[in-house]
């Protein structure tokens, strides 16, 4: 067969159907904005209930994580995310889903080697590098503080 790999790969790239950029951006904006608006509403509610600004902010994050975890558990999150895309992925909702979905999946392999070992299969890199960069930032902050 007359087959040139380079040319073939170029053709594959050229002809493959792209994700619908405008549609995806529109839904990401709408759903992402909706989640942020919900967060703002919750913040106002918690402040109204008399919490400090700091506590209210934390509680908003906790509430959104809780809602995403419940929606993942009942099997609704992925159906929404299929349309919302980055709209549900980028806020803390996406992170919650990335932790709960492998945990759900692996419960058939047991609590320790299933859920325990695989719960961070997707979120693991985020946790690792976030912790690492936090530590690096702390060292830099400390060293710079010595000279200022």
């Amino acid at each position, binding site marked *: *067969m007359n087959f040139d790999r380079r040319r073939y*790969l170029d*053709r*594959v790239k050229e002809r493959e159907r792209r*994700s619908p950029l405008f549609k995806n951006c529109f839904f990401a904006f709408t759903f992402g904005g909706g989640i942020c608006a919900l967060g703002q509403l919750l913040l106002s509610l918690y402040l109204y209930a008399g919490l400090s600004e700091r506590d209210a902010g934390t509680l908003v994050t906790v509430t959104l994580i809780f809602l995403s975890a419940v929606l993942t558990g009942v099997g609704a999150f*992925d159906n929404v995310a299929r349309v919302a895309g980055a709209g549900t992925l980028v806020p803390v909702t996406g992170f919650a*889903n990335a932790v709960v*979905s492998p945990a759900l*999946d692996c419960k058939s392999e047991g609590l320790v080697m299933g859920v325990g070992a695989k719960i961070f299969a997707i979120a693991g890199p985020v946790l690792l590098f976030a912790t690492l960069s936090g530590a690096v930032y702390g060292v830099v902050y400390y060293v710079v503080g010595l000279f200022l």
Partner: protein
Amino acid sequence: MRSIIRFETPVSIYAHASAVGGAEADGPLGALFDFHDPTDRFGADTWEKGEESLSRAVLNLALSRAGQSQDEIDLLFSGDLQNQCVASSAGCGSMGIPYCGLYGACSTSCEGLLLASLALSASRETRRVAVVTTSHNAAAERQFRLPLEYGGQRTPTAQWTATAGGAFLLARANEPTLDPVAPRITAALVGRALDSGVKDGANMGAAMAPAAADTILRFFSLSGERPYDYDRIVTGDLGAEGSALLVELLRENGLNLAGRHRDCGVLLFDPLKADVHAGGSGCGCSASVLSALFLPALERGELRRILFLATGALMSPSNLLQGGSILGIAPLVVLEAGKPKKGGTT
């Protein structure tokens, strides 16, 4: 084996059965499958075990159609997508029939038919051989991609591993007890693992199309035949993307499929209704569509001769992360209608 294997005594597929999950049963071929389970569990408590029971169930159905028991089967070839093809080993493989586990990714159905025909041609004592292949969407997604409830967007080129299975019982066509109407395998061609350089796990059609083109071109160049000598040229699961690439590759090499090409992955789902993007895939996809659609058409005499090549994307997540690409493979068998029924139309 570079040459076409022509079986001196053709091999009959004297009984077969198919089963699918819920999404496949809602597809355009839904009514043709022998049974389906809308929950995709097939009576088991995990997806993986569900595939095991699917594998046993399709073989048992094929056996009951032939009025035979498992003890009358001399040899079993079976494969699936799970690690160590455990759905086959623990499924139909544990029914007491001497068993060879196969792993040819989505090409396993055709690989099994090819090897079964070889085994029947090689040994007089081997009289009946079974071939079973299955795939399960949830089991495959978990193993190869992302958790089921993960909220991500798939690209338009991605394919959907079908929850499906097919079982085939084969014997030499000159066995006196066989129904002469049964479709026959008359020739086969072993595929070559071909590295197309595609590294995108969400575009497996592109990874498989060159392997399918290679097998088809080799077949026609070795046999001296042309596509119009066949009623259909059926590929396993190239999907919409891979099918278009196949036709282009063949045209560039001077072969026109003349509208005879069909792809099981494209046929299995309705792209407007199911969220399957480029189409279905998996070992069970080609096996179930062959059993539900093409073999009955050969039995009824609506089709006389078809080329069947299931296409496999030999994808390993660790190999991809190490910079490897997805190899494609496409074994081929020639399927011909049996003797027409007396008084029947051909």
